[in-house]
């Protein structure tokens, strides 16, 4: 009995410590060095802290379900992309800067629903998501990548900074892991590890030893760099967002209380036969879950089971109704 009590007490103490670290972290009063020492002391501490984080995040998903439309974080990217969709002209004007790329580029593309892995000349890896195209040129003094369309995951080995172009945008990447997606008139670079930096395309070339005239924007791990017709911006990527962003690399698609309309649009990227929402009342229903990206059967049956939405096959695709 006393052994049991001893164990129980220990468990509670660790749960309390983990919760305290999390509360301090959230309040910005955490002593990081002491935290790392605590977490590294025993696996139990690391587990307890991750559990506290899980509890914390679970409450957030409840908050999202309550007021998902009021919370901006998850939808910032799409909102931003929609907002600048009308600014294509501004983008076109600066597009000339890179038209000299038309020599010695290798390229690869993926079809709808296809996912393709590539090894780049320096040993870096790339993965093309559905309906994507990338071109690249590597030499001793150049690592250039051009996303023509779609979405690419990159795992860059050490070396000179890689320049990644998309539309008329350009970012510079260190070694590390990145997810790069073109959406509307924007290129969205999510940093999983390493650094991504950007200067406006029209910025003068920065010469070594001279200060840049326009401040360079830098994104670190767990941040996203959005390059649009307006000035490049960095935003924190929430853990949910990060996980959902790279889910496709496992052949999955993750919705975390997204409006049905958004979820369907995402799904349609992977499908030759598209899903259409026939009933406008359905568009705002929040949906969540993890599904196989190329096969909507589970997604559709989840909609039916969970929300009473019917999917009727039509023209090779599906129509959703009440």
């Amino acid at each position, binding site marked *: 009995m006393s052994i*049991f009590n001893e164990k*129980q007490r220990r468990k*509670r103490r660790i*749960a*309390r410590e*983990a*919760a*305290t670290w*999390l*509360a*301090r*972290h*959230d*309040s*910005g*009063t*955490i002593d*990081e060095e002491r*935290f*790392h020492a605590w977490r590294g002391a025993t*696996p*139990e501490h*690391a*587990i*307890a*802290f*991750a*559990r*506290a*984080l*899980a*509890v*914390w*995040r*679970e*409450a957030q*998903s*409840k*908050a999202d*379900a*309550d007021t998902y439309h009021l919370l901006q974080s998850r939808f910032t990217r799409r909102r931003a992309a929609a907002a600048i969709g009308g600014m294509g002209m501004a983008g076109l004007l600066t597009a000339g800067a890179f038209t000299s790329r038309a020599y010695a580029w290798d390229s690869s593309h993926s079809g709808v629903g296809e996912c393709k892995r590539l090894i780049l000349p320096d040993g870096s890896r790339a993965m093309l998501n559905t309906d994507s195209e990338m071109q690249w040129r590597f030499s001793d003094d150049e690592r250039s990548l051009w996303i023509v369309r779609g979405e690419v995951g990159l795992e860059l080995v050490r070396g000179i900074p890689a320049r990644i172009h998309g539309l008329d945008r350009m970012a510079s990447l260190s070694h590390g892991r990145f997810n790069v997606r073109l959406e509307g008139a924007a290129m969205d670079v999510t940093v999983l590890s390493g650094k991504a930096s950007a200067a406006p395309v029209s910025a003068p070339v920065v010469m070594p030893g001279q200060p840049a005239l326009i401040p360079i924007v830098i994104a670190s791990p*767990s941040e996203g760099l959005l390059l649009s017709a307006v000035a490049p911006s960095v935003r*924190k990527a929430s*853990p*949910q967002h*990060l*996980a959902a962003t790279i889910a496709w690399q*496992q052949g999955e698609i993750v919705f975390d209380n997204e409006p049905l309309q958004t979820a369907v649009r995402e799904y349609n990227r992977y499908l030759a036969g598209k899903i259409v929402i026939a009933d406008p009342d359905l568009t705002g229903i929040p*949906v*969540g*879950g*993890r*599904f196989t990206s190329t096969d909507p059967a*589970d997604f559709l*049956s*989840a*909609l039916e*089971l*969970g*929300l009473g939405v019917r999917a009727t096959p039509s023209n090779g695709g599906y129509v959703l109704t009440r």
Partner: protein
Amino acid sequence: MPVSIIRPIDIWFAEQIFPHEQRFHAAALRISGSRDEAEELVQEAFARLFELEGWAAIEDPRAYVVRMLRHIAIERLRRRRIVDFRQFADTDHLTLADDAPDQHRIAAGRERLRRASDLIAKLPERCRTVFVRRRIQGESSQEIARDLGISQSTYEKRLARAVELLSRSWQGDEDALPAAAGPANTSRRSGSR
């Protein structure tokens, strides 16, 4: 919340592992037959997962953990002198038995949300107020502390207490957030073992 001290593996755990913690305990209990040992099995599996380099590539983390539980249990059984073969036989069915189809995720997600709200509702009032205002309503800590007329440190203690109680009740600690007294709860097992 800044994410600096939170590693990708923590997020992965929070997202892929802990939502199934009770299921892991149930599976471990089926293998080991003792509550204490079941808890050790789960703890050991989690500890090994934290050490695992390729965690990000695990396709179905839930099934993976159940397999781990089985392997760890078998390792332990082998170290014993007398082996109860029924336990081996039982473990063979575990992976299958535990594989609920994924299409129930939406319904399961709703269930989880309901569970989360239920647990939050059971928090002691002071902790709940702080937790809900910070986490659900998204107010800043300074705002909440000022409004309640409490110090930053008291605020942090209440917030931490809320997270602690929720964590413990996730872990199956029935004393953490006991059900409110009432006729509906008289049939509930009360912490005895």
